[in-house]
């Protein structure tokens, strides 16, 4: 039970273990909050002078080159009107979009390397959302109060360093209103979420599933996500296994990615909590092709179900080999990392995949199936590359809605208060997107109760209707 608590209520346990070893007095010495704040204030002041210093350096060039055209650049800023009161009261101020300038939304998704299909899929979802927000797909983005909305795509590299670099780049652009990302939890936790949050830039992820990102102890106030927490999916799959399939023993495999390991562990914890037995928890390497060794090892304990929340490359191979090695009696279950035609084709019938309940994309199932998917295929030349395009679409729409809500026009310049935007997103409630009806909870989970389903692959395709579906809520 302790283990389950660790998973479901991270903060209680974590705070204790974080703080207990250091006496309060010592902690004061280590991190004197006041002094730190004072220092930061000083630094901010210094940074204000930076413009002046730099100005001196480039003055010659500017003076020589521009003389005449100087004036029109300057006059656009704030002729009449001036910033509204919300900007002064907002702790992080406003994004000021001068007339004729676009509203910039950043994305921080993995678009290179082996995981690029995950990020590109989300990026496509965002691009389509920006296009469709005015009700038609016409390859022209929506405008908000006369300003174009443009996407500034960045790569999170699916790694901490990639997330840091990308977040720094986006944070440096004071025109960026909000950022949709990251793709991978490791790119966000303690890196991108902190860098952007420190500047008052909201980060909303379509595919981060790590519980730590929205755990009270580690969550950044400017962090949100439309993807469901691993905890939900792990618990849902465990229920599917224990209650629906009625198996009492299960084995897990992860591929060394944080996503897979997190899910495998979440599943194992929930399954044991339900009363099941985990016979073995194994791992493979990304890039492996021959899994006879690991399958032999799993087979030795003869589990009734094998859960492998890994990705397509290894997943397709693993499932084929598992069928021959383990036989038909073992239930094979994967997760949304495997949602892809290539996997369905390779896996064949009788394999189960968990994930968001697409069939319960209730309100907008029509939108998804009849408008979104055909357009996706037309525009990008393939079936969806991964499972999170819809979450990205929803994230983009939530951001757009929040911008519309808080943006104030004053003399042609659009003012978007940063904290105000964050609060507007946090207040999202009952928004009907593709992935379901979204309401953000206090910790930034916009799917605090998600309908997680398990689909069977039938006839080389994922069946439209799930064999098992359950609404799981956090807390």
């Amino acid at each position: 039970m302790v283990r389950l608590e660790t998973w479901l209520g991270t903060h209680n346990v974590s705070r204790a273990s974080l703080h207990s070893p250091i006496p309060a007095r010592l902690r004061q010495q280590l991190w004197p909050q006041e002094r730190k704040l004072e220092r930061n204030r000083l630094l901010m002041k210094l940074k204000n002078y930076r413009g002046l210093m730099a100005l001196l350096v480039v003055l010659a060039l500017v003076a020589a080159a521009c003389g005449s055209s100087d004036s029109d650049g300057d006059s656009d800023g704030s002729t009449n009107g001036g910033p509204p009161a919300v900007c002064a009261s907002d702790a992080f101020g406003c994004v000021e979009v001068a007339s004729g300038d676009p509203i910039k939304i950043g994305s921080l998704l993995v678009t290179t390397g082996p995981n690029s299909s995950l990020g590109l899929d989300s990026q496509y979802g965002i691009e389509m959302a920006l296009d469709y927000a005015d009700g038609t797909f016409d390859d022209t983005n929506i405008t908000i109060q006369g300003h174009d909305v443009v996407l500034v795509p960045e790569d999170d590299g699916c790694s901490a360093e990639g997330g840091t670099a990308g977040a720094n780049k986006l944070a440096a652009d004071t025109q960026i209103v909000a950022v949709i990302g990251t793709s991978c939890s490791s790119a966000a936790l303690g890196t991108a979420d902190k860098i952007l949050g420190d500047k008052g830039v909201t980060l909303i992820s379509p595919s981060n599933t790590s519980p730590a990102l929205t755990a009270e102890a580690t969550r950044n106030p400017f962090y949100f996500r439309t993807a469901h927490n691993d905890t939900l999916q792990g618990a849902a799959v465990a229920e599917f296994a224990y209650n629906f399939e009625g198996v009492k023993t299960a084995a897990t495999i992860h591929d060394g990615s944080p996503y897979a390991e997190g899910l495998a562990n979440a599943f194992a914890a929930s399954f044991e909590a339900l009363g099941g037995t985990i016979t073995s928890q194994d791992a493979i390497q990304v890039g492996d092709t021959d899994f006879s060794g690991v399958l032999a090892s799993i087979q030795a304990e003869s589990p009734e179900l094998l859960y492998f929340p890994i990705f397509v490359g290894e997943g397709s191979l693993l499932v084929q080999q598992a069928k021959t090695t383990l036989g038909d009696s073992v239930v094979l279950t994967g997760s949304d990392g495997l949602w892809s035609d290539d996997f369905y084709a390779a896996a064949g019938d009788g394999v189960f995949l968990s994930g968001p309940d697409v069939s319960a994309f209730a309100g907008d199932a029509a939108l998804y199936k009849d408008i979104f998917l055909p357009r996706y295929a037309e525009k990008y030349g393939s079936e969806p590359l991964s499972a999170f395009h819809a979450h990205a679409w929803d994230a983009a729409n939530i951001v757009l809605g929040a911008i519309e809500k808080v943006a104030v026009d004053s003399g042609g310049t659009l003012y978007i208060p940063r904290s105000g935007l964050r609060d507007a997103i946090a207040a999202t409630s009952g928004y009907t997107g593709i992935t379901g009806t979204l309401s953000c909870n206090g910790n930034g989970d916009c799917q605090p109760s998600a309908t997680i389903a398990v689909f069977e692959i039938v006839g080389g395709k994922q069946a439209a209707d799930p064999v098992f579906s359950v609404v799981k809520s956090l807390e």
Partner: protein
Amino acid sequence: MTPELRRSVRQGLIGGAVVLYLASVGMLVAFDARAIITNVVNFATVLIVITFAAFGYLAGRPGKGGEPAQPFLLAGAVTGAVAGATVGVVAVLVDFLITGLEWDVRSMWTSVSPTLMELLSFGQSPIVGALLMTLLGFTAGLAAGSLHLATTITRKVILLGLMAFVFGALGAPLFKVMLDGMHIPNRWLFDRDGLTITGAIVLFAAFGLARLGSFRVGGPRQALLKVPGTSEKNLRWVISVLALLGIAVLPWIVNDFVSDVLGFVGLYILLGLGLNIVVGFAGLLDLGYVAFYAVGAYSVAILTARSSYLVGGSVTAPAVAGYTNFWVAVPITILIAVVIGVAIGAPVLRLRGDYLAIVTLGFGEIIRTLVLSDWLKAKFGGPQGLTEVAAVPFFGLNTRDPQILYYLIYAFAGLALFISYRLKTSRVGRAWAAMREDEDIAEGMGVSVIKYKLLAFATGAAVGSLGGAFFAAKLSVANPGSFTLLVSINVLAVVVLGGIGSIPGVVVGSLVLVGLPELLREFGEFRLHIYGAILIAIMILKPEGLIPDKRRALELHQPDHQPEKSVLSAEATEGIQ
């Protein structure tokens, strides 16, 4: 067909093929999204023009060995037109396949999208598009060919102006953000993510004129000498002081992001210098250098992490030695790295160069597998890695701020530079050089090959682990995803591009290979692609690198004796005859 004409046609075909290649790997479409001059011309078109022009120029170049000068105008025009026509014809054919035969080309060639076809036909019907493409090629080739008419100075001025204009435009989003951050009006220069027409003309003119001006006074060096108070004697000092000053104020001129990138460049300078000792000084090809980077990062993470949150959400007990001060952890880390370096080096040092490469690569993979493994998860956090690594404590400053961390990283990079220089010019460096050039003779002259190889490995490991230490402290996390084989290859590429064995080369290599791609991140998809091309091109065209090390350059141009035929074994066969 005259030989000149044949040569032009061949160049044209190759040029056309290059453009088709760029199209078929998706670069053109991706670059189409980037404006050079907003609403006028985008990067894809510029790239096509550059390719046509480059081949047009090459075709008109006089051949080697004083061949009579080509009719370069004609050569340029023919080459350009052939290239354009090649592209056009293929585009028409593909269009026919798609629309006429209804063959689903895109199911195989994913990059052949409607956008691409539209791009290649300039939004016209395919035939008209092909004609336009041919015309574009003809014009570009003719213009490039006519460059041969110009004097060297004019040519260089034009080229620099054009380069300034293209790079200025590519960097536009970044520069714009920087200028905005400094509240410098820039609307006349940049428009969204490209240049304005004024901006393009100004950039072209400014750089062209600057270059022309520096020609007039006899180069930048002479120009600097004109400044009162400088003389030939103290010029070095002046330059060093200026450079140091530049480095010192740089983060305050640029923004946080560029500072962060520069910090990353600094890390690669550290790593590059470390690997340079192993590869450049001692001549040992190490493809597993990432091992030491990982050792550094993980040691510091384990020693200094306040607690070890796993990304998965569970919280392990505070890390083994939690709360160790970074400055205490660093020497321990270096010690660990040296021990591991020697342990890795010892079994393999006697192996032939190629074997050494594969074995070190293996060691890199072994280290990565170990930190990733479930087996040692309790120590290293498995796939989730270690988080909450403490920032570098430094007089109470916030060292997570890229602008502050910059100084720390560069201070250590400077230290590594100093160590490299001192070692290189010492008895130790001489022994390495001797060993690298001829191991047998070096041993015959009294150099203990084993000792000096181990020394190189240990020194390289120490410097590399320092890079890792800063990496972990910078990011606040250490996880296995950061320590893949690709890092080893990146660092090697930095060393190679700058010039193997060359210390300033490492700095330049890092700036070019780490800095530039970070600044052009939106092309990230093609980063490794272009990287591969650079590695090949450098090795073929300039194996000694951008800033060659004198001695190393000489070695790289000496023909290699076939390995199985080293003189010693040739002598050994004497006894067998």
